[in-house]
Structure formats: structure tokens, C-alpha cells
């Protein structure tokens, strides 16, 4: 065995990231050429704001995917955090406190997911499919099926208002990307997340507290979908109990396009962010090009497969 030295640090995940990024750039170029309104400051800010909810939930999904799991309850968590916050605010609780409790409600669902997965030894797919259904039912029951509207003005701040010309959701998104990017890449918690997905049993035998680590990961996913739910509610100043339906699959798509593996052990927050932007920009760009919504679906499906496929091919070189 001839050990030809190759001194690249973390080569795979960085290569992976660059390859996803190049996909994004290709998309940007195509849309910039085909539509003059695409590459305007307004639209770019607009796309980022539009992508914020998917991006936030995809961060949580990435953590879960890295452990080898999946979180289907994301969509329902979006709804419950929005609805709980909205109901509390309307009942007169201070906005800040309402937000905290709303986020707690989504985080609690995440903790329940994690506990069922790790203590109950149940497949994450089934656990989160169950909580997805049950939590949606809870949200509908709480609201009697009717969106909670007429939210206080102060709440707009996180959805609509701008600071230095940039919409606030973008700051929120950047904040969470940095926090959860750092946790994943630089902390013990992040390292354990990878270890669990790479080899659960080896992690346990190495002294990793597998239970609390897994619960933490699902709690992150719950919390982040809760944040997404608040941003969404604040943007439309209304909290519908049906918010976020079907978003979970988009979150998985964003993560996987960004390099996460559904088999666990792989994924980065930077990659996921780019993956989410690809999905968001695709939708925005096709809209601007006036592509019919039916054709848009065909294109989206092909791009999802194509992005992962292109990535595979580049990796095999």
C-alpha cells in the first residue's frame, strides 16, 4: 500500500458543499439570463425571506438525518408554535412570553419524538408520522379549524419589518444558521450527532450519552420548526392550523441536496442552507419566468433528482 500523501482537511464535506454551491450558481445564472427582474436586490431579498422557513426546518432536519433518523412532524410543529403563540398573544400575554411558550410547545413535541425514538426504540419514521398526525389534530382542535388572526402589531417585527433595509426574518435565519452551524461543526453535541448516525452502538460504548444526545437533536428540530412557524405567522399576521403541511418532505429534499444522507452520518448546515436556497430559488425563478404551476412541478421533481445525481457523479470522479 503506497500512501501518497493527500493533505486536504475534511475533504469530502467541503467538496460536497462546493458541488452544491455550484448547482446554486448554475441556477442563478440561468434565471438571471432569462428574467431581468430576477437579479434585483428586492427579489434576492424576497427569495431569501421566502426560503427562510424551509431553511430553518431543513437545519433541524439535517441534524435528525445525520443521526440516521427523519422528522416528519416538522409541518405540524410549524402550525402548533404559530397557533399557540397567536392564541396566547390574543389572550393578552406579552408577545415575548407568548413566543417563548409557542417555541416551547414545538420543542416539547421534538423532545417527545426523541424520547420515543431512543427509549422506545421505535423507528423515527413511525414516531414522527404519529406525532405529525396527532399534533395536527391538536392544532386543529385548539383553533377549531379556524386561523387565529388579528395578531398584535409588535409581532410583525419578526415577519415583515426591516432593519437597515433588510427584512428581519433574514437576520433571524442567519442567526440560527450560525448558531446551529457552529454547534454541529464545533461542539461536542455536534460531534455526537455525527457519531450516533455513523455507529450508534460504538457511540454508546464510547460513553456518549446516546439518549440525551438523540433527544437534543429532535428537540433542535422541534425548536427550529417552531421558529419557522413564528416567522411564517408573523409574515401573514395570522396563524392557520394548517400551516406547514407537507413541508417535511421539502426539508428532507433541501438537506439531501445539500449533502446530507438519509442513511445518517453525513450533512452540514452550510450545505443545507444552499440546498434550501436551491429549492427556494427554483420556485421563485420559475414563477418569474411564468412557467405554469403544473410544469413547475415537473421541473422541481427533475431538479431534486438531478441535483443529487449530479452530486453523485462528481463524487465518483
Amino acid at each position: 500500500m503506497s500512501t501518497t500523501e493527500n493533505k486536504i482537511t475534511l475533504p469530502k464535506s467541503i467538496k460536497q458543499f462546493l458541488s452544491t454551491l455550484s448547482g446554486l450558481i448554475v441556477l442563478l445564472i440561468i434565471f438571471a439570463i432569462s428574467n431581468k427582474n430576477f437579479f434585483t436586490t428586492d427579489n434576492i431579498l424576497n427569495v431569501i425571506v421566502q426560503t427562510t422557513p424551509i431553511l430553518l426546518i431543513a437545519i433541524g432536519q439535517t441534524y435528525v438525518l445525520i443521526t440516521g433518523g427523519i422528522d416528519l412532524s416538522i409541518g405540524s410543529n410549524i402550525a402548533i408554535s404559530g397557533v399557540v403563540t397567536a392564541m396566547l398573544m390574543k389572550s393578552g400575554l406579552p408577545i415575548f412570553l407568548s413566543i417563548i411558550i409557542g417555541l416551547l410547545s414545538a420543542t416539547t413535541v421534538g423532545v417527545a419524538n426523541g424520547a420515543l425514538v431512543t427509549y422506545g426504540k421505535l423507528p423515527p419514521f413511525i414516531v414522527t408520522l404519529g406525532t405529525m398526525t396527532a399534533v395536527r389534530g391538536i392544532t386543529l382542535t385548539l383553533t377549531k379549524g379556524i386561523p387565529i388572526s388579528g395578531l398584535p402589531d409588535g409581532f410583525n417585527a419578526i415577519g415583515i419589518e426591516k432593519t437597515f433595509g433588510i427584512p428581519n426574518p433574514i437576520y433571524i435565519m442567519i442567526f440560527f444558521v450560525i448558531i446551529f452551524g457552529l454547534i454541529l461543526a464545533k461542539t461536542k453535541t455536534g460531534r455526537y450527532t455525527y457519531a450516533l448516525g455513523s455507529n450508534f452502538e460504538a457511540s454508546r460504548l464510547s460513553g456518549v450519552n446516546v439518549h440525551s444526545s438523540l433527544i437534543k437533536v429532535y428537540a433542535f428540530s422541534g425548536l427550529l420548526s417552531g421558529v419557522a412557524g413564528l416567522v411564517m405567522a408573523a409574515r401573514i399576521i395570522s396563524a392557520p392550523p394548517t400551516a406547514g403541511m407537507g413541508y417535511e418532505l421539502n426539508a428532507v429534499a433541501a438537506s439531501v441536496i445539500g449533502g446530507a444522507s438519509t442513511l445518517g452520518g453525513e450533512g452540514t448546515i452550510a450545505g443545507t442552507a444552499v440546498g434550501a436556497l436551491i429549492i427556494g430559488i427554483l420556485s421563485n425563478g420559475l414563477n418569474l419566468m411564468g412557467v405554469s404551476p403544473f410544469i413547475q412541478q415537473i421541473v422541481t421533481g427533475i431538479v431534486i433528482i438531478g441535483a443529487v445525481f449530479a452530486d453523485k457523479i462528481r463524487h465518483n470522479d
Partner: protein
Amino acid sequence: MNHNLVELKHINKTFPGVKALDNVNLTLKRGEVLGLLGENGAGKSTLVKVLSGVYKKDEGEIIVDGEKVNFNNPKEAESKGIAIIHQELNLCRHLTVAENMFLTREDSRWGFLSKKQTNIKAQKILDSLNLDLKATDLVSNLQVSKQQMVEICKALSSDAEIIIMDEPTSALTDKEIKELFRVINKLKGQNKGIIYISHRLEELVHIVDRVTILRDGKYITTLDYGKDKLPEIISHMVGREITDKFPRVECEIGEEVFRVENISTPSGVKGVSFQAKKGEIIAIAGLMGAGRTELVRGIFGADKKTSGTIFIDNKEISIKNPRDAIKKGLFCVPEDRKKDGLCIKMSLKQNITLPNMNMVTALGFIQDERESTITRDAIEKLSIKTPSENQLVKNLSGGNQQKIVIGKWLASGAKVVMFDEPTRGIDVAAKIEIYNLMNKLKQEGIGVIYVSSELPEVLGISDRILVMCNGRLKADLKTLDTDQEEIMYYATQYDSTEVI
């Protein structure tokens, strides 16, 4: 009829970044067993995979029974009478023994499988090896050693002329090994050809006729085997002389560091007690299924215990899970590196530091320099061969992976280290490195407990030998006062013969 059964000429095979085979030749005659030897990563497995159609060669010629062939997949090799037992277990755990043995060779009538017929055929082969196995057993319920025997039966069931065995005995204990050798000799009598890969050089004497040696992917030489040739073979393998295969270090026995009392587990360990003192290596010997792994796992907290107390430095400690054990300085190197030891998608560095995260983090953040320091230390201590500390574990050869499993536990304050089959599947030179490491721990006053199925090794390196049989501790022997016969005597003291 005079031509060789197999001729490999000038085989070349390159993986990204690694020239695994560099102009390798090999011949196999009818009615012989050819030993294929070399260090970890020498290219043995790669060569036999080329011969069995798993990999395509880059260059060279494969001649089987006088006919030049070119295999595109394993099925084509099989149709030319080549069967292979791979180094890694390759069974479908959800299928039965018979279903695995006859996968793709099922009997069927009108498109429907005739399970009965297949089961009868499989049972015949199992019985011919005196295996206590049913054809209808689910593979997932079998111990590793039994699974390995199923692999062997699978290869035998194909009636191949050429049978390749890649470290078949690394997961077996004496009883099965004896059966295996009996079968190999029988096959030899039937004029079949066998290629046999192993790192247990002592066992070659029973079966091997010639040996071919590889080093760093290159063909070194082929010799007729003879017992007296072992030193020569070893020096060809490692490229230097090795004088002492078991470098025992004598050391003063100190006070007790570790004691367990009355350990029992649901997995079959029954009331085991023993103590370990500073300055000694304790070996735990026994046959397959003796419960040694279960004992070690039970102590470590990896499995549940039904009873038992554990003392370190005469202080009772409570261990409910591996985390508790590690906090108290009790470490364990597991038996199955793929399953229990390594995160193979992660880098060498990340694996080494996984049990030591508290040492490399500040305020929860990982400190790169501290990580590198610990990792470089382990690489150096164990002479791990790797291009960089960031190399992914899955790209390293088996022996180097095994060293990482051990290296994980070198960094932080160990009081007691339990090794379960630490030298399984690694080459002579690397084994000596591991013995030296255990010796060093012993000199530092750390308790060393060590499970091994290789009696020569146990006798060569340990100070005291505990013998287990059927979950019970049967004997506590001073190594220098005992021998193989005595150990085997205790290892077969089954409960049924006991008078209580």
C-alpha cells in the same frame, strides 16, 4: 490434466490513491492448500476478490483450469467452479441458514421454492461438519462463530473446484477450527484446490502445502511450507526479522486495582468473581460461547447485569452503562470492531477522540490543537499507518482499523482496560505492537484484562489465566504453571458434569 488449477499472471489493481496489487503472480495446483500471506493491507483480499469476480483487474491474466477467463461478476466466477468465503461476514441476517447457503441456487418447482428440499440439502452439509445448527435457524440468532461456519458451508455447498478462504478462522474457536481442517483435508483428498488466507500462522502447519507471500501489493515469493520455515515466512511478510513473537515483560505484582464479585447477566454469565492486581495481565480463556464477551460487556455496563458488584481500588462503583464505567476509568475494547468499535464514516481523529471529548473541549467547543495532539500521540504509540489524521476510517486496512479501536482508550486516565480479542485479524508485526502496549499499561500499574481465543498468545503474554465455560469461571491459573491441556480441561467443564 497437468496444468495448474489456477494461474494468476501479472495482476495489477489500483484503487483511488492506492496501488493494491502490483504485478502479482500466483499458482494453485489440484489437491493442494496454498497459504496466501502478508501483512494487513498487503493486498490478499484484493487478489482473491479479483479471482472471484468481485473486482475487475486492471491488467494481467487469469487462467482457470487451462482456460483464460475474464469475470465480470461473482456469478461468472462461480460458474467456473470458484467459491469464496469473504473476510467480512456476508450473510443476510433475516434469512435462515439454508436460505443463505443456497441463495441464487434455490430449488424450485413451477417457480415456487421447495424449501423442504433445500433444507435437507443444507442440513446434510451442516451435519457433515458436526455443527450444532439447524438449516432453519435464522442467521440473526447465531453467534458470530456459527455465522462464520455458515459461510463456510455456503462455499462448500456450491461443489466448487477452487475454494478461497479469506481468514476463515479469525472468528472461530478450536472446536470449529478442527472441523474446518478436517474438511479442508477431505477436500484436498478430492483433488480440489484451496487458497487459504490467515494471520494465525501457527495453524498453517495442519493444512498448508505451499505459501505465497505478498507485501505492499507486490509479489514476494512462493515457498513450500515447512514448520521450520516460519521465521523465514515472517521475515518475508514484514520485511525484517522478528525474534520474539510474544514479548513478555516481567513486573512486580502490586496491590489490587480491580475486583468483581458475583457477576451474572441475562446473556448467560453466572456468578463470576475475580480480582486483578497491578502489574499483571489477566487473560480470560474459553471456548466459543463460554460467555467471555458477555462477562466483559456486563462489567462494562454495555449489557444489563442481574447481579454483581465492581470495585476499583477497593472502592465499590456502580456501573449502569458504559458512561459510568468510563467516568470511573474502566475501559473496554470491544470484540467486533465494525459493529461496536468504529464510526467508519468518520475520520481517524474523530474516532480517537470520541470517548475523550471532555479533554478536547472548552466550554463545549472542540479545540483543534488538543484533538490533534491526542490523535498524533495515538498514531505514534500504535504506529498506525495513515496518510493523515483526517483520513476516513473506512479507507484504512483492517489491522489499522483495529489499532484505532484500541487507540481510543489511550488518552485519558485509565485504571482498568479490558480488551476483547484485540488481535483478531491483525498481522504478526501489529500483534506485537499491541502486546507491547498491554505490557506498557501493566508497567504503569493499570489493570489489564484480556479475552483471547488464541491459546499460544494467552500463554505467551499473560500472567494469569481465567478459564470460563458455559458462563461460569472454572479456573484461575498462573500462566507460567499451566499449559494448553490444563486450560482445555477447564474450558470443557460443562455444568451437566458438575455435581452440586
